[in-house]
């Protein structure tokens, strides 16, 4: 028997063994499980549908109050770690759940992202602790990612994005670069630190961007189904 590179060969053999031992899920069965899961998820995703008239009215009041300017003053000005902050987040979540997909929802997501940026600016001034700051940055990242989404933006939606970017540019420097980086990561039109499209004109998008950051969002994201298992790297 010929000798070969033991470590490399072992790794290849084990990869094949593991992949062969992993029973595939047929497309039909995958769809069947999906239907089971989504029947629950769809039900939960729109809780207002199942509410009584009274509860639905209360939900609408909450939403209206949130959209028109916020729950209460105390909640509206609250920061992460404050007692009223949960009310603020709850109102936002309720609103997000009932807003229809599309322009309104995207507008609201950009609005929330702007709020998170404001909160971060105020927290910086107040000297908030690192843990709270990290969580707030993560919230900003999540909201900007959701706001940009995967679908192309209309001209009006691009205007929201531009407003958010301008808003971020007005934040104090200790956080501005990081916020801009989060925006660049979320924005599928940003390539190599340079924005594409009208929505980003005039923005200082290069600051904080890595020169070898991932390419354009136009390219389809790699999917395990199309690329196959991706764990074939060497140990």
């Amino acid at each position: 028997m010929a000798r070969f590179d033991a470590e490399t060969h072992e790794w290849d053999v084990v990869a094949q063994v593991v992949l062969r031992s992993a029973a595939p899920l047929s497309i039909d069965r995958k769809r069947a499980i999906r239907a089971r899961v989504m029947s629950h998820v769809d039900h939960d995703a729109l809780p207002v549908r199942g509410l009584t008239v009274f509860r639905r009215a209360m939900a609408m009041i909450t939403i209206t109050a949130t959209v028109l300017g916020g729950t209460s003053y105390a909640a509206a000005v609250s920061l992460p770690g404050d007692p009223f902050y949960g009310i603020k987040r709850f109102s936002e979540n309720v609103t997000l759940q009932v807003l229809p997909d599309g322009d309104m929802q995207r507008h609201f997501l950009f609005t929330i992202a702007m709020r998170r940026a404001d909160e971060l600016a105020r927290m910086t001034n107040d000297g908030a602790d690192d843990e709270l700051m990290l969580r707030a940055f993560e919230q900003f990242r999540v909201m900007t990612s959701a706001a940009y989404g995967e679908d192309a933006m209309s001209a009006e939606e691009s205007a929201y994005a531009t407003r958010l970017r301008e808003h971020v540019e007005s934040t104090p420097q200790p956080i501005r670069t990081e916020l801009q980086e989060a925006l660049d990561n979320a924005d599928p039109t940003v390539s190599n630190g340079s924005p594409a499209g009208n929505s980003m004109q005039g923005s200082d998008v290069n600051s904080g961007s890595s020169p070898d950051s991932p390419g354009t969002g136009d390219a389809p994201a790699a999917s395990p189904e199309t690329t196959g298992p991706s764990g074939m790297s060497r140990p």
Partner: protein
Amino acid sequence: MVLGARETALAERHIDRLVAKAIAGDARAFGRLYDEFADRVYAFVRGRVVSTQDAEDLTATVFLKAWEAINGYDDRGIPFGAWLFRIARNAVIDSYRRTARVPEIASAEDAFEVMDVSAIVDERVFARLEVEEVCEAMDSLTEEQRSVLMLRFVWGFDVKESAQGLGKSEGAVKALQHRAVRSLTRLLAEENEHG
């Protein structure tokens, strides 16, 4: 196929966006996360339950638990895949508890003694092995060793992500992986000798 760094980054960004939407209550986005991860979750749970029906039930359970918990995901500080794997692994352990079976969980120190594998498995040996023999060899590993191999090869995780998925240090994962690879090649070599 090996994913390049750029493709990996795009895939991660794609998943991040879906997760963000799902956290915001978007059922469609969650459905797409299911599409992305269902094969890997199923592959992981199938090797641990008796029937395909149980594996399908468990796969559905994993995603329902993920949906219920997704609002708390952002605080955990680990990639979504690793978080989902933890849910899958806990669901498997729960199912073992319900059926009074206990998965073998060994620490890296208690795992197989590392042997000097002089009889490295030949490609031809592997080609002769039936799927049942391959699965038997996998079954003879400890639960943690199997999990590490599954994460590395089927889920496509690197060492760091595998460590996050298992809640272990990177060093512990490397040790588990080393022992798993050595144990598996030794077992396959034995199969070859007896076969």
